[in-house]
């Protein structure tokens, strides 16, 4: 019996019981739509996190200076001026270090023409941009020479540009930060939100020396709030963390049993943790949705069993006039698979449409990849075969004499 003729036979049986076939399909439709939607939401969240992580930069440490105690009140990390520019240089000389960038941040009001905007001012070396994987949208970054000369040059984040300049081109213009004039030499590429929801584009970047001497003057010249360190690889990170601790304790002359006056944090590990939390969430969503797929499959099995019983006489006739076991098996199996594949097709359509609606209405990031669709299809085909096989086998193994006598 040729496959097309067999498919036609199965299709006829599906059509003969439209309502029942549709209700059976509905189980698959809902299951597949739920799986596609849930996986799309999971993948959307995943890719949003991945984007944020790659915007942050990879294999990152942050070395924070220690806390001061003022009038019995401990002030928190970064308040004591324990980290020096020289510490950053020493870290950069360690093995497996891509770059070490000293950072001196502060906040100030920037002014251009009639506009003013309070923002964070970050004093860095050019290495900072490399570590953060940050490139320029227009203009150029400042150089090591600018750092040595404490030049009054600034790189603006997109948010600052929007607020101070509007549509005007800021390159070459002079803005005032704390009354001092700075020349805008570049505009930073937009990075969007950080993992904790901060606007990373609301920033002005200046040479670290300029920040130390001309903006946020301190009684401890040469000190920095923190140092961003990038390791050459993820594998090297544990060793790098250990070596930095040893190096800084030696440089700061800290006894073995005393508390350190700095803290090393592995930023990438934290980011990885939130990425894997998202991954787990998307697996859980998918797993819950696939339960409905299994319920849909059981629905198919249920209806196929009813159908086989109802059509006992038909099966007897077919066997008597020459159908082999495999002809009967295939006929009923094809029926189950056809129902589940059509259900799957509609389900994928609904799932993709639902994902689109979620994105439009709820503003959730969703991502429908070919993988998801392929997965839904193969699972649905698998469910059709798995749950269709038992009823089909039951039909194929019927005794024709009893089947013909069945009323």
């Amino acid at each position, binding site marked *: *019996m*040729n496959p097309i*003729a067999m498919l*036609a*036979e199965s299709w*006829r*049986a599906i059509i*003969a019981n439209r309502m029942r076939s549709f209700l059976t399909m509905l189980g698959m439709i809902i299951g597949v739509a739920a799986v596609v939607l849930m996986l799309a939401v999971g993948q959307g969240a995943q890719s949003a996190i991945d984007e944020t992580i790659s915007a942050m930069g990879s294999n990152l440490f942050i070395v924070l200076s220690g806390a001061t105690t003022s009038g019995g009140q401990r002030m928190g990390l970064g308040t004591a001026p324990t980290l020096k520019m020289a510490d950053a240089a020493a870290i950069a000389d360690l093995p497996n270090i891509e770059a070490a960038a000293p950072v001196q941040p502060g906040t100030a009001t920037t002014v251009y023409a009639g506009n003013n905007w309070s923002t964070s001012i970050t004093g860095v070396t050019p290495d900072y941009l490399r570590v953060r994987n940050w490139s320029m949208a227009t203009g150029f970054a400042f150089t090591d020479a600018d750092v040595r000369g404490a030049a009054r040059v600034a790189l603006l984040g997109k948010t600052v540009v929007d607020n101070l300049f509007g549509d005007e081109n800021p390159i070459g213009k002079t803005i005032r930060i704390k009354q001092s004039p700075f020349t805008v030499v570049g505009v930073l590429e937009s990075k969007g939100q950080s993992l904790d929801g901060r606007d990373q584009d609301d920033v002005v970047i200046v040479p670290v020396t300029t920040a130390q001497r001309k903006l946020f003057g301190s009684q401890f010249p040469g000190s920095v709030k923190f140092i961003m360190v990038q390791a050459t690889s993820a594998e090297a990170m544990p060793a790098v963390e250990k070596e930095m601790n040893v190096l800084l304790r030696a440089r700061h002359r800290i006894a073995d049993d005393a508390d350190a006056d700095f803290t090393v944090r592995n930023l990438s590990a934290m980011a990885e943790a939130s990425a894997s939390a998202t991954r787990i969430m998307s697996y859980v969503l998918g797993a819950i949705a696939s339960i409905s797929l299994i319920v849909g499959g059981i629905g198919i099995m249920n209806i196929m069993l009813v159908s086989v019983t109802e059509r006992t*006489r*038909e099966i*007897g*006739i*077919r*066997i*008597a*006039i*020459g*159908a*082999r*076991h*495999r*002809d009967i098996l295939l006929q009923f199996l094809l029926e189950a698979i056809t129902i589940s594949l059509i259900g799957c097709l509609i389900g994928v359509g609904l799932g993709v449409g639902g994902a689109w609606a979620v994105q439009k209405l709820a503003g959730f990031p969703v991502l429908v990849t070919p993988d998801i669709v392929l997965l839904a299809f193969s699972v649905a085909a698998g469910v059709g075969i798995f749950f269709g096989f038992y009823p089909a086998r039951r039909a194929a193994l019927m005794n*024709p*004499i009893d089947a*013909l006598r069945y009323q």
Partner: protein
Amino acid sequence: MNQVISVNQLGKDYATAAGTFVALKSVSLTIAQGEFVAIMGPSGSGKSTFMNLLGCLDYPTRGSYALDGVGVATLSSDALAALRNRVIGFVFQGFNLLPRLNARENVALPMLYKGASSAERARRADEMLVKVGLAGLGDRRPNQLSGGQQQRVAIARALCNAPRLILADEPTGNLDSHTSDEVMNLFTELNNTGITIVLVTHEPDIARYAKRLVRFKDGEMIYDGDPAGGLI
């Protein structure tokens, strides 16, 4: 003469809760090409069991059976299906048409399992419908046909693979006497073209159409010969 059916000491037992039930004791019989045989007997006489064995729908407990020269005892169920498909045409008391298929599709059904193309199936099915006197009714469903017409569709279905043997199990059991005569005349016509016909009936009037009568009682063959002699 060419033997279509050759049965030697054929027997069938059924296991029941009360023990073994001997449905058919030991029957030996040959039916040649072109014969028209009526089988009669009260219920429980073993005639249905015998028909099922002849139709290769059941395996015998003992004895041997050759259909169209092929010993069936050792054949797999798939090989039996192919043999039934090629050699036998079945006609049942209850017509046994598939209600959701039209007459043409019902007739074409056995050709489906032979692997014929859909064009070939439709062409041959229409040919068979003409042969049984139902030209132009191919698109009707069974419930749009009278009992006699339904049985003609069933006969057309039995004919479509050009079988050497037609096995009919009380083919007129659900028909009135006038329609029964029409169907029996059709069987006679087919027999005249050389097709072997074996039919089970309990009506002497129907058995008279046959050229040979076989009677069963209590699992044994008690008469084999001229219909006139066995119908007293």
